[in-house]
């Protein structure tokens, strides 16, 4: 450990300072207070907790991250340099968790749809968000959600009124640029899709940093009756960075929610998804793709709660692990007593590209209804040597053949991504970020 001249500010001290500021008082004060109490009591999770058994967040607990209170300068050129998918249309940019109006645009939003920064909504129209913030993302027992909620001050609010169809995807770019002190970035997203509405939201989480930062993100999505919400989260944090993010969705009657969580970068990445099928006839697609190399750790935790009858859920997670990387998948499906005629499918597949890569997979089914279909499967494999030979015998180099087969492994997931720009970016990134060199195949 290196000696620091002045000891870094603890979260308690940061929170005390936050409480004295003008932003704190107002409608979210008690939410923040409760959340900080909760965080303070829980502390960061340890591997003694079942849900954290395989993910040691000691490096996060030991680093004195600093919640950001002032926006920093960020240029268009720097943003362009991050190679984010450029869809055009409405795009909100957040730097270190704080809204950057200069880089953002709401051009092309259909009438009625509102996309605003949380700070702006809290200042102008707090009643639009106070009933919803923290409603799906509960802080009890969830240290990271509590930490995000305690310091919540900015983020994105997407409101789609009943019956409105937003054709153009709404992009939310969260960029972290860590300076001297390790940055704590707290992206917060609230999506409220009214009945019969339709919207696509693309979150990108990325950063450039030589020093570690923590991006601790919380997204809450309320899907109204008969609404369609398509959600993407592309995580490409800096190699030294940590990310803990959670997605919470509640589905109304006959609604359709699909989510893709794609992880391409970060030292420790933990993605949690909790979906409640809260009305009859809801359909949920929960997909994930992750690519890890070196000593990266990618942990995906999902819970799909079938609370009502006649709902379908399709879950497919695929991991590509190279180097000494590790993957964790924990997929829980709950089928409540009333949730008859549930159709739940879960599949988790991992491709190990090296001898030292590891995957831990744990499907959990808790079924209380008796007339349901629930299937789950997990596979772990390596690149098929006969397929490699076949491709090489047609003139492709060993490296080309490997890339093609890895890409093929991810192909069915990529096909489900409906935003062409996101799909194209992943196509490139998948090939670009693949480890080169011989892994003894």
């Amino acid at each position: 450990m290196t000696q620091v001249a002045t000891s870094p500010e603890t979260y308690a001290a940061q929170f005390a300072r936050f409480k004295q500021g003008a932003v704190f008082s107002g409608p979210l004060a008690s939410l923040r207070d409760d959340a900080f109490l909760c965080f303070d009591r829980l502390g960061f999770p340890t591997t003694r907790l079942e849900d954290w058994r395989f993910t040691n967040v000691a490096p996060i607990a030991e680093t004195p991250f600093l919640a950001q209170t002032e926006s920093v300068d960020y240029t268009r050129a720097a943003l362009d340099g991050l190679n984010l998918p450029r869809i055009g249309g409405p795009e909100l940019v957040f730097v270190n968790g704080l809204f950057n109006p200069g880089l953002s645009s709401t051009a092309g939003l259909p009438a009625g749809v509102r996309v605003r920064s949380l700070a702006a909504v809290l200042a102008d129209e707090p009643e639009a968000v106070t009933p919803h913030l923290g409603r799906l993302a509960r802080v009890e027992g969830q240290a990271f959600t509590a930490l995000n909620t305690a310091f919540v001050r900015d983020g994105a609010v997407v409101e789609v009124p009943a019956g409105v169809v937003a054709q153009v995807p709404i992009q939310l770019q969260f960029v972290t640029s860590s300076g001297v002190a390790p940055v704590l970035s707290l992206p917060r997203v609230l999506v409220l899709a009214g009945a019969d509405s339709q919207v696509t939201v693309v979150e990108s989480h990325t950063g450039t940093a030589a020093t570690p930062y923590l991006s601790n993100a919380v997204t809450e999505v309320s899907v109204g009756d008969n609404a369609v919400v398509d959600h993407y989260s592309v995580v490409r944090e800096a190699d030294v960075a940590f990310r803990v993010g959670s997605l919470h969705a509640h589905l109304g009657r006959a609604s359709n929610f699909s989510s893709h969580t794609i992880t391409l970068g970060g030292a420790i990445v933990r993605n949690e998804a909790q979906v409640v099928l809260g009305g009859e006839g809801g359909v949920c697609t929960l997909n994930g793709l992750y690519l890890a190399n070196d000593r990266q750790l990618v942990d995906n935790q999902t819970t799909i709660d079938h609370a009502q009858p006649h709902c379908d859920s399709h879950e497919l997670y695929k991991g590509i692990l190279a180097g000494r990387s590790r993957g964790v998948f924990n997929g829980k499906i709950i089928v409540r007593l009333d949730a008859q005629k549930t159709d739940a499918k879960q599949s988790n597949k991992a491709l190990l590209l090296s001898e030292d890569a590891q995957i831990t997979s744990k499907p959990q089914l808790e079924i209380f209804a008796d007339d349901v279909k629930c299937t789950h499967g997990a596979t772990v494999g390596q690149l098929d040597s006969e397929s490699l030979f076949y491709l090489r015998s047609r003139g492709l180099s060993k490296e080309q053949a490997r890339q093609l087969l890895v890409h093929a492994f991810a192909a069915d997931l990529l096909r489900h991504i409906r935003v062409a720009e996101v799909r194209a970016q992943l196509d490139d990134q998948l090939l670009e970020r693949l480890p080169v060199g011989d892994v003894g195949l």
Partner: protein
Amino acid sequence: MLEVRDLHAKAGDRQILKGINLTVNAGEVHAIMGPNGSGKSTLAGVLAGRDGLEVTAGSVTYKGLDLLDLEPEERAREGLFLAFQYPVEIPGVNNAYLLKAGLNEVRKHRGEPELDAMDFMTLIRDRMKLLEMDDTLLNRPVNDGFSGGEKKRNEIFQLAVLEPALALLDETDSGLDIDALKTVAGGVNAMRSPERAMVVVTHYQRLLNYIVPDFVHVLSNGRIVKSGGKELALELEEKGYGWIETEPAAAV
């Protein structure tokens, strides 16, 4: 074009090839016949560079190059093509994409410009007609869900697109009905030329009614025990392999 000298090879601990000698010149079609386990597929595998086969003695010269020193893709780019006995199913890799990537690697190696999409499609359409291939096979994943006949047809289709100097056909006839066999043989015959050599490995004489070889070799227990013209295949058909195996090894 191809000179195989005293080739010995092992698969795992088992010595499979025990001294193969074979000379193939441009324009010639050689048939290699033999019973199960005689080493036919091992020979094809060693020539194409399959993993898991270890050459313990001998040499293979191809177009003046030490073939055994080349990676499988380098052999392919030098114009060697293996039609697989069991074509591999590769879900997620588009058939046309693989062909285009392979063809462009071969062209790059020859110092030719890459084919653009238009020229590629023109070539593809022409070759598909030759093999009476269904259009839809082109945009499906490689061999994925293909019938046995479609897979073998796809192999010869690839051969026709890649236009190799030396084609090795490993039991391309196995499992084909007579119509598919005729189509596949028709495709192979259309590709015969004075610059191109072919080595046809087969268990059954039937294929040789349609692809008439210049030379027939009988492989038994890791050695070529008899060589002759096309009439040798007919003799084998009539008498079976038994009489060959009891004869002393013939000089090649």
